[in-house]
């Protein structure tokens, strides 16, 4: 896949994730016990043999940089090609980058031009999936398409707007595209991943950014639906779209199903992430753990049910965690009880406290907070 360039866009809307994205971009949101959301897209690209990945940064990307560093965990610290960080032009005094992928791509046009790859795959990073870009690329070549949109028919995607529905004909050509349609005309939902020639990408960027357009898909690709040969490639595996707290919670809990766990982590290649060299999990006598995902570095003496524990969480005797997500290094005092709660990183809960949320509206405790 020397011929394919990967571009990851971090500018997807994150308002729905509320507290989880106050201080971090979507790609840096912790997920699945030891990962960050971007790990899936990044690993999928690398597993498909892509050796040149550009990451479009806009704002709140500090935690993301801390996570991906020089790309070594994805084998992207290369002499030639490798990982490139592409910051957006700054928006005045606030120091924030402009969250428009067209403007950002225009700003980093030199990178696109210089890359020796002939084709590019452009992807958002909100999709939790294990996907074979190689198959999608081969499909693109076989169909001689101008653009290939990767879609999935899993019903729950349309239940969590925003989403983009696509309609294809029997040959796979995309006939219609609709954003959050009230009357859903198709179960096929775009994964916000597009393959095209790099030249075409540069042309679209040049043309539409000069006309003050902002989004590659809605402003540059959708209007050319009749003119360009756009095909849809179906990805059939599990997909979780992380666009709201509800979907974040729901897709996290999906990991507790062994079939989803296997699909996500063992199908087309492994999902890589920053390695922290934590020790194996210690289960002490009396621990009660069921239906839970536990990351290394945890020590468990209490009860954990239907929950996800990130690295280095200590569950003392008498602590009860149910239907919750507890991120890295949470400190839980004796007798703490959690239900339908999401604890962000480094939270401290003092002795005897009981926190309860609701599955449709989990209670989120901010990073570094003390309760």
């Amino acid at each position, binding site marked *: 896949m020397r011929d394919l360039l990967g571009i990851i866009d971090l500018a997807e809307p994150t308002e729905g994730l509320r507290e989880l994205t106050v201080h971090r971009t979507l790609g840096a949101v912790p997920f*699945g016990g030891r990962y960050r959301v971007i790990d899936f897209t990044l690993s999928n690209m690398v597993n498909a043999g892509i050796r040149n990945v550009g990451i479009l940064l806009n704002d709140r990307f500090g935690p993301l940089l801390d996570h991906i560093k020089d790309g070594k965990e994805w084998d992207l610290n290369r002499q030639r090609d490798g990982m490139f960080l592409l910051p957006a032009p700054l928006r005045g005094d606030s120091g924030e980058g402009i969250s428009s992928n067209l403007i950002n791509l225009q700003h980093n046009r030199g990178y696109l031009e210089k890359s020796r790859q002939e084709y590019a795959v452009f992807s958002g990073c909100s999709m939790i999936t294990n996907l074979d870009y190689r198959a999608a690329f081969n499909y693109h070549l076989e169909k001689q398409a101008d653009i290939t949109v990767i879609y999935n028919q899993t019903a729950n995607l349309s239940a969590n707007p925003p989403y983009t529905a696509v309609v294809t004909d029997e040959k796979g050509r995309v006939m219609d595209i609709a954003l959050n349609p009230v009357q859903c005309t198709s179960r096929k939902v775009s994964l916000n991943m597009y393959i095209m020639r790099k030249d075409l990408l540069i042309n679209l960027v040049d043309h539409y950014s000069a006309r003050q357009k902002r989004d590659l898909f809605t402003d540059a690709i959708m209007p050319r639906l009749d003119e360009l040969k756009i095909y849809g490639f179906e990805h059939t595996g599990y997909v979780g779209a992380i666009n709201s707290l509800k979907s974040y919670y729901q897709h996290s809990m999906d990991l507790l199903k*062994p079939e989803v766990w296997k699909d996500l982590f063992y199908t087309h290649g492994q999902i890589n992430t920053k390695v922290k060299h934590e*020790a194996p999990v210690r289960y*002490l*006598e*009396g621990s009660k753990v069921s239906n839970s*995902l536990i990351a*290394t570095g945890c020590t468990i003496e209490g009860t954990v049910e239907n929950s996800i524990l990130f690295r280095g969480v200590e569950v003392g005797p008498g602590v009860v965690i149910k239907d919750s997500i507890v991120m890295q290094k949470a400190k839980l005092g004796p007798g703490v009880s959690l239900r339908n709660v999401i604890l962000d990183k480094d939270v401290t809960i003092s002795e005897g406290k009981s926190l309860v949320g609701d599955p449709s509206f989990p209670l989120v405790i901010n990073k570094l907070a003390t309760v």
Partner: protein
Amino acid sequence: MQKKEVVAMLLAGGQGSRLGILTKKLAKPAVPFGGKYRIIDFTLSNCSNSGIDSVGVLTQYRPLTLNAYIGIGSAWDLDRSGGGVSVLPPYVREQGGEWYKGTANAVYQNIDFIAQQNPEYVLILSGDHIYKMDYSKMLSYHKSKGAVATIAVIPVPWEETHRFGVMKADENGRIVEFQEKPKVAKSNLASMGVYIFNWKELRSYLEADEADPNSSNDFGKNIIPNMLEANEPMYAYAFKEYWKDVGTIDSLWEANMDLLRKDPELKLNDSKWKIFSLNQTLPPQLVGPGADVQGSLLSDGCLVLGKVHHSVVFTGAQIGEGAEVIDSVIMPGVQIGRGATVHKAIIGENTIVEPGAKIGVPAKPGENVEISNENGITVIEDNVCVPQSMRIVQGTVLSVAAWPEFPEEWIS
């Protein structure tokens, strides 16, 4: 090349024949330990944590797993310019070449490697012990004593002194006598196989030793006694924390079980002294709805649907529904089928235990069993398949070679 204060030479070429089938295809330092590590991780992590950034790893017996594992040393932060980790197998010279004849000869054959870096001190280590030790403290001790050689020692029970090299030291720590595996010991301070030498002196002793045709070219048997005889200032550095030689099935199993105590002596999750290892980035372990996990260590990629009590389960192992694992060491990638039972056993890497198989069951009256170790531990070789109907009596060592009619389909 940049001059280094200290170069570490890690002896990792031994077979570890007392581990039997566990070291059939790999060297002892590469044997998995503690849920996610290999034995050599402890020594390499000690180097890294002690600020030693030049480590030669001497390999000889079955080095492939070890070579692939160490790579360029990134996992231990030893991928450094002007040093880092170097894997050093024996090599051919103008006059031919030879295998490493003994520990001292292995270092002798790499005099050029050490000389390139022209260090003040050389630290000799072995890759088959489990311990956490700050070598920089030992080096400060060595310097403060003005020693030519410093030997790390640990008190062992008197009845076990016959298994070790034993040091007798005076009140200043100066070594006055050394006994190699004595019948009647004069001290219970055992050598840990960790030595610091002044490079200049060590070099001349290695050269003299090589010139002696009667020498067995071994640190314990030759170099140390020779230095002592020449009245060189040699000191004992007392180490009081956890240290274990895991050279036998019993000690390997015991050392794994030691980790399961409520307050283990050797803490693996110490953020100031991390034990690094090559990670496969597998997903967090999934503990299923009917699982029952107590007093155990489990690592990434494990899928547990059954019962795991007082056991160490390595990366990527799977325990099926209704299966029962007790007092056992389950190595990476092992799959234990539904309803199978595993009691007091070590199961080698990637072995499949089919549903319903029973491992480590008590012998029936009159059943003739050859018990190969003190604790009655059952050992199953790596990469085999134990079929459904199998009942393996406790204390058995199951290997393909020892089983003449071992059916082809058992090998996975």
